[in-house]
């Protein structure tokens, strides 16, 4: 794993690389480097298995992190290729031609995060949610509890008391000691 990473760094001037454990490493690439690196890994390094393609929403730094996890099943090790996209205009060119399953991943990311993959097949069709007009649900600024309380009505009659506050109310109500 170590040798492979150093090779890649020389060839692709990768900025940052994390060795999570001996058979799993993560590298961060820019948009342009992504496709050549994926092709190189798939054809030359034997990472033929696209394990998963997912997005992580770093809302504080206004970044979507796309993670392409490639697995080399004979050697039994994986490489996670991470790509940082700006959060507001998040779109990335599709890789469905490298792996057909990528089309499904990209459909899900399109619907769940709002990351657009322009030429990916059937990317705009409803994948999981039917007739969803609200914010893509997996973005962190979509509050699922608020949405659920608005759309569905919970059963009434549920209220709770905080033990410390209740003991203060019962044992020493008139004395507040904010000095």
């Amino acid at each position, binding site marked *: 794993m170590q040798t492979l990473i150093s090779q890649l760094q020389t060839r692709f001037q990768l900025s940052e690389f994390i060795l999570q454990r001996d058979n799993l490493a993560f590298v961060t690439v820019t948009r342009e480097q992504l496709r050549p690196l994926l092709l190189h890994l798939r054809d030359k390094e034997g990472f033929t298995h696209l394990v998963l393609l997912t997005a992580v929403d770093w809302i504080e730094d206004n970044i979507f992190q796309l993670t392409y996890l490639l697995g080399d099943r004979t050697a039994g090790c994986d490489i996670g290729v991470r790509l940082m996209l700006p959060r507001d205009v998040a779109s990335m060119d599709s890789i469905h031609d490298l792996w057909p399953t990528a089309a499904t991943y990209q459909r899900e990311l399109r619907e769940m995060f709002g990351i657009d993959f322009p030429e990916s097949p059937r990317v705009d069709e409803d994948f999981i*949610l039917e007739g969803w*007009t609200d914010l893509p649900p997996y973005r962190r600024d979509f509050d699922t509890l608020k949405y*659920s309380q608005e759309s*569905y*009505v*919970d059963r*009434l009659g549920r209220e709770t008391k905080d033990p410390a506050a209740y003991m203060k109310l019962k044992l020493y109500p008139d004395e507040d000691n904010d000095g």
Partner: protein
Amino acid sequence: MKDDFEKLLDQQPEKEPEPQERPALRDIPVREELVPRTVTAPDGQEIRIDPLQDYYCQAGPTVQTPAYTRIIEDLFNWARAESLWILGFGTGCGAIEMRPLMTPRFDAYRYGIQWRPTPRQANLLVISGYLSVKTLKRAIRSYEQMQNPKYVVGLGSCTINGGMYWDSYNTIKRLDDYLPVDLYITGCMPRPEALLQGFDDLKKLIRAGKAEGANKYAENFERYKTNQKRVIKDWDMPDYSW
């Protein structure tokens, strides 16, 4: 649990669920093949086609009052109770506990319970756990296509008050907002023995003529429809697909 169950049997129809405020309906673009359109027939005649209205009758469900004398009604109820044909639609995770029920070990067949593939031949819809919005739409359609002496049983805590997915944006929280529920069996997920116990209690309900879910659906059809439409956003099916 037994005693207040008997109490229920001779109790009058229970209280009307308390009214809650309702957020506004949403307007969703309907798929183009369902948009009303005008077609010119070969002889030049203009024909208006409204796909959602044309092929289905407009009448909503009607309340089925007992038509015969008490004795015959009891006989019918007994017959209905003894043959609970469950619609084989596993809407949630609880459906996996229905499989052992239908196979030799728990053998619900000896109690007259069996799985039927189509709603036409089923008289019991079991909502087995959480109900996502997409499945709710199909469940409503299946329920409406079932013939009239039909009952609904809710399994697990997800049908009572949202269960584990109480804060999920895609599952409904209270089943009785959308479908008339005759019976709840709690458990995450209820065991086959609990299911059998539940179906046994349902039989008692039916024999006593108290399983009025279908009539309740017909009586406050409007309330159920507004609840359903508020949650199911792309409503592209007829209001009542009998």
